[in-house]
């Protein structure tokens, strides 16, 4: 084929720009560490990358939900643990008072101690965490129990049975709160009655029935603690599963979006060689002309 001057120049320019363009692209990939800079670089890869990114963000939020839930459960557990101690103490006192050998003043001393337990237990039931009364169901801005009078004459439930739900995985929506009324039941009423009975020097026979009430209260608290413990375990397991998922997703995302450094460097070297070769070839042929051989 005849090769005109313009075609020759045009071709040389396009060889050079093509080679430089290829090198530039590889160079950009190396600099950004990304294989997909915009969706058109690899549309189906970009679709996958967006899926992975979305899932990564979702999993991160699930872990945030779990973390927040774990903190809530830990506070709940601490409160219930305190309730356990208090109930065990009041049980000891009641067992002691059930003994007929105690005199009136001793009973009144016990009554004072029971009153302390009542007040502390009410504080436990009204535990708040970040301004939220954790045992109040959905009425979280209201204390779970209203304490009337000093010493308390009546402690009334003001919460509801609302569950504090959150999502912890694509499948699971779980409650984190424990409903105060379901744990404490009629404990406050009974303890107040017990205190008043002791205060008036009631004999052992009248004190003894309260032990059963305290025991069933203790059982409810322990059940609640078991539930909280189970939830904490599940949260931990879910968290570690989410972390595993995250690792997998990050790998998948990197596999689609990021460059393989070794491979890209090899491609960069190849592109560089190609550009150098093109430059060299043009340099050598540019001066080839019949004129060089004519006098």
């Amino acid at each position: 084929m005849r090769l005109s001057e313009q075609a020759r120049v045009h071709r040389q320019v396009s060889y050079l720009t093509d080679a430089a363009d290829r090198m530039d692209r590889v160079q950009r990939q190396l600099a950004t560490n990304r294989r997909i800079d915009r969706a058109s670089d690899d549309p189906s890869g970009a679709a996958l990358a967006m899926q992975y990114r979305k899932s990564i963000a979702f999993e991160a939020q699930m872990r945030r939900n779990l973390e927040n839930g774990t903190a809530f459960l830990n506070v709940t557990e601490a409160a219930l643990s305190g309730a356990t101690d208090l109930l065990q103490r009041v049980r000891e006192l009641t067992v002691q008072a059930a003994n007929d050998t105690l005199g009136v003043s001793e009973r009144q001393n016990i009554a004072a101690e029971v009153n302390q337990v009542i007040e502390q237990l009410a504080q436990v039931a009204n535990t708040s965490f970040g301004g939220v009364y954790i045992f109040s169901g959905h009425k979280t801005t209201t204390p779970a129990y209203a304490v009337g009078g000093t010493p308390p004459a009546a402690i009334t439930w003001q919460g509801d049975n609302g569950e504090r739900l959150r999502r912890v995985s694509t499948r699971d929506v779980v409650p984190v709160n424990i409903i105060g009324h379901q744990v404490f039941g009629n404990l406050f009423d009974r303890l107040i009655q017990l205190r008043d009975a002791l205060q008036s020097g009631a004999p052992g026979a009248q004190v003894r029935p309260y032990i059963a009430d305290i025991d069933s209260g203790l059982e409810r608290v322990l059940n609640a603690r078991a539930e909280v413990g189970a939830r904490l375990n599940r949260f931990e397991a879910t968290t570690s599963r989410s972390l595993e998922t995250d690792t997998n997703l990050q790998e998948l995302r990197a596999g689609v979006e990021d460059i393989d450094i070794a491979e890209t460097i090899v491609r960069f070297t190849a592109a560089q060689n190609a550009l150098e070769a093109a430059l060299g070839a043009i340099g050598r042929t540019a001066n080839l002309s019949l004129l060089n051989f004519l006098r």
Partner: protein
Amino acid sequence: MALSIGLDTAVKALRAHQLAVDVAAHNIANAQTPGFSRQRVLLRPIGLEGAAWSARDSLLGKPGFGVDARDVQRIRDAFMDYQARQALSSRGQRSAFAAPLRNAETIFNDPSDDGISALLARFWAAWHDVVNEPESSAARTALVHATQTFTLRLQAAQSELDLQRRNLNQLVSSAADEINACAREIAALNLQIKQVELNGDRANDLRDRRDVLLDKLSEVASVQYSEAQTGEVTVYLGSHELVFGATARTIVAGPDPGDPTMTKLTWQNDGFDVVASGGKLKGILDARDQALPDLQRKLDAFAVGLINGVNTLHRQGYGLDNSTGLDFLQGTGAGDIRLNPVLAANPHRIATAAAPNSPGDASIALQIASLELRPNMVAGAPATHLVTGETLSPGVTLVGLQVAQGLQPGTYTIVENPPSSGTLELQYDGNPIGTYNSANISAPGGTIQFTSGSNVVATLYVAVTGTYTDAQQVADLTAPGNNAIRVEVAPGDFYGNLVSVLGADVNRALGMEQSAGLLVDHLDAMRQATHGVNIDEEVTNLQAAQHAYNAAARVITVIDDMLDTLINRTGVTR
């Protein structure tokens, strides 16, 4: 034969070869001039036809009268020009189309850490944080901010797409200017060429200029042209004559009466619309009137889907102050989506609870946050990817499932509604993603769910033709004689699909631009092979002409010697 004839022959030779040198010089001078066609002296021997009839007999068997070099021919292949111009039109169209699409892609800037999909993820995350602590004003304020950032970004994307379209108006106007300028110059050249060639001369350089203009015109708008006997070309744009003889028609750019923000081209003489079938103009108009509006419609559908989905739930909920019935989002599309200003000013009024007086209840907020996972957006509606009116008879291949980007080949199983008979193959991007014998396809109202693990990633509805809103869904799906499908996907997938379909479009447009460019280069090289100047060749011609010139001069010397012999020596004795 007289010696003077020999001298005459030699003089003709001198002139001819001098002309050859001049032509070589002209060629060399224009070696880099765009559109220049190399020229060649057409040498012809002058035979007996040059002599008078009376002398013919005596000249038989004698040499002729030398060389005739009057004609300087222009080397040009009209067919190659025709092919090259078609390729130029195609390249013009492809590159004009690809550029705005590529800009649109930059507007979306996804996949990235700060694109719309990242902001959408932050929007959902902010809802989750409110679910975690519905009483917390910090979480609510954060939700206000996340929502505002997200909606402002959507608004910006939509208005940038608008801007893109308006910018293309300027290109439409300048394409009109270019067409008019080319047409006027071609008309003027037509006249000059006709006049020059009427005298029997060659209008080589004028024709070169006209060919350059036809190239340029073809790149702007696909034109047809034909050359008349007189050397004039008639140029057609669509069904209208753009240039006829020395007359050029004008096209005018003005506001489109249908949409005054858009520029429209019409013919000045009869007011008809200019129809561009190729070239830059077509690419610009395709991008401005189809690709970009399609993208804007999808973005609107995405915004409307979100607005409806969130508001439907939010209106049922109660804020910390027991306010209820409020919309969370306002607006009619991506261009004006915004957080309800009442909520922006009073985050405690954001409805999170299902009942009044329940500050710790976040069940409504949880449902809103869970919209992220629910296939609740009609993918593609009302844009092109919704398959409507397609008869779902067994064995039919359904296209249009590319809307559900989660649907990668082989990853999903199909549950629910097994078909009574036949098979239905679903495709993703041309590849089957599964043939299944399930789904009671003939029964309208059925659904087919695509699951990944235990998550529903898309729901296919067997439905009526037409477009749907969410509310219409059930009613329409169960109406008799309905046989279209629609695909619903989660919001993130809807947006992801929008981006990756755009990416594929850009990718395709760039590929077509590149291959059109390669074709132009190839055909240009082929054209150049015919009409381009090669310096070595011209230098060789120069050498040849110089040799011939020298030899002709030599002939004169020889004849001069002969005359000298004849005049000064003949008859001189001693």
